[in-house]
């Protein structure tokens, strides 16, 4: 799913949805390629999302009504922009909160010292 240079895939499995939702919360409108580039840029290429993981998920989110799409003609080709719906905003908050909570729990569980 991920081409992941740093982390094992089972570690990151299941966080992709949260990542996409978070990106769409910050930047209102994004197209697929832009999302992959943004993730690469933000993580210093520690996490690279593949097309094989991204598009199926985007289409699923669209079917669930979490995101809507808007098409823009770029010359001969069409670019599809993804935007969060109202439900999508709610879902994003939930997912991010859930993950933050999870990290705190893991902190306690694995006795990690904050690296400040």
């Amino acid at each position, binding site marked *: 799913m991920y081409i992941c240079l740093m982390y094992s895939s089972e570690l990151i499995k299941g966080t992709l949805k949260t990542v996409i939702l978070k990106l769409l919360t910050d930047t209102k409108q994004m*197209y*697929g*390629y832009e999302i*992959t580039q943004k993730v690469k840029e933000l993580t210093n290429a520690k996490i690279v999302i*593949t*097309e*094989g993981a991204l*598009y*199926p*998920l*985007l*289409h*699923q989110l669209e*079917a*669930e009504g979490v995101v809507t799409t808007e*098409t823009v003609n*770029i*010359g*001969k*080709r*069409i*670019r*599809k922009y993804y935007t969060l719906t109202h439900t999508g905003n709610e879902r994003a908050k939930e997912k991010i909160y859930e993950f933050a909570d999870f990290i705190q729990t893991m902190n306690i569980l694995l006795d990690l010292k904050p690296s400040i």
Partner: protein
Amino acid sequence: MLSLTEEQIAFIENDIRVRGITSPDLSIDLLDHICCLIENELDEYRNFETVYQQTLLLFGEKGLKEIQEETNRLLTFKHYYFMNTTMKISGYVSSLMILIGSIFKIQHWPGANVMILVGVFFLTVLFLPILFILKFKSTDENNRSIVLSIVGFIASILVCAGILFRVLHWPGARMIIISGCSLLILGYLPIYILSIYKNTTNKMNATATIILIIAGVGLFISESGTGLSKTTSDSFWRGVTDSDDLLQYNNKAINKNFELMFKKHAADSVKLIQLKDLQVATDSMTNYISKMKIYLISVSEDITEQQAEKINIDDLRTSGGNNFLTERLLNDEYAQFTYTAKKLKSKIEAYKQTLKKCFPNVDLSNLNTEQITVYGEQVSWEVSNFEKLPISLVIYNLIRIELAIQAAETATINALQ
């Protein structure tokens, strides 16, 4: 960064289609994505062809098609959680309904049939199809498991329908259950066992399933056989049906006899009155008993009296409900009811008095209502005829009493010659 020309874009668009992407929605995404990737890489030193081929390598061995498959999988499973929840809820509800319905049925409380009907309905219309769909989807297109799901689905629908037919006394129940069970034993089980030996991960689980299937089917077979061999129970039932036919036949003969006697003794007013009394008393007696039979069948089988009237005696062969019938017939709690063993007994005694008035020496040994000795124990007539017997035997005993009445009646008519 160079922009792609219209021809190049058209080429990619076509190539995506050739590589098996059929969804227009997805091909728009992929086209833009691939164009972006190429435009990033393209410079004066590399041509479009090389960059395009390199870009395609990024998509892995199975390539673009896998993205579409993954998308379809996610989209078909959009309703997965909903279906899963529906399946679970309908499963719990229907099994609970069937269980409670069965308890109601055994206790002869009202509403049993409706509950079982609704339960089986949910089971066959919601639970089994969803189970089938989910199982079908989750199998990795393995031919054997698809066949297994289909066979299992059909067999379980057959068994459910058969039980429903049986409970509601619709015809053909036995055939449906037997075909469902045979399909399980001869179709499902062999394929299932074969598939386990291919896949050793869950042998324990599989053993449990096999045992459950065999035990379940075994229970059905034993239940439908009532412990008697088919020949034994068949010959018993032939006897009962024959006795019933004999009753009708005798009745015709007796009525003819009465007509002859009325003609013969037209001048003898004493004999005419005796004959009339005899006829009225017998009519009331047989009327009472035939209504009693219908009433008992209707309460024991939980059907209306109209249905009970039409029911084939054969269909009663496996019905239990002994304690319930015993209570109805023998318990003082039900003393005010029209049809009890005590009332039948007093009617028979009154009838015997009428016969004796006609002819004091008439042989009434067949209509004995005294205590009898069973295995060295004194048992009342009521108990010996009705206690703890299934409906079939109760009906059989009532037919016997009817035959004894006919015999006594004929003997009396003959005595009056």
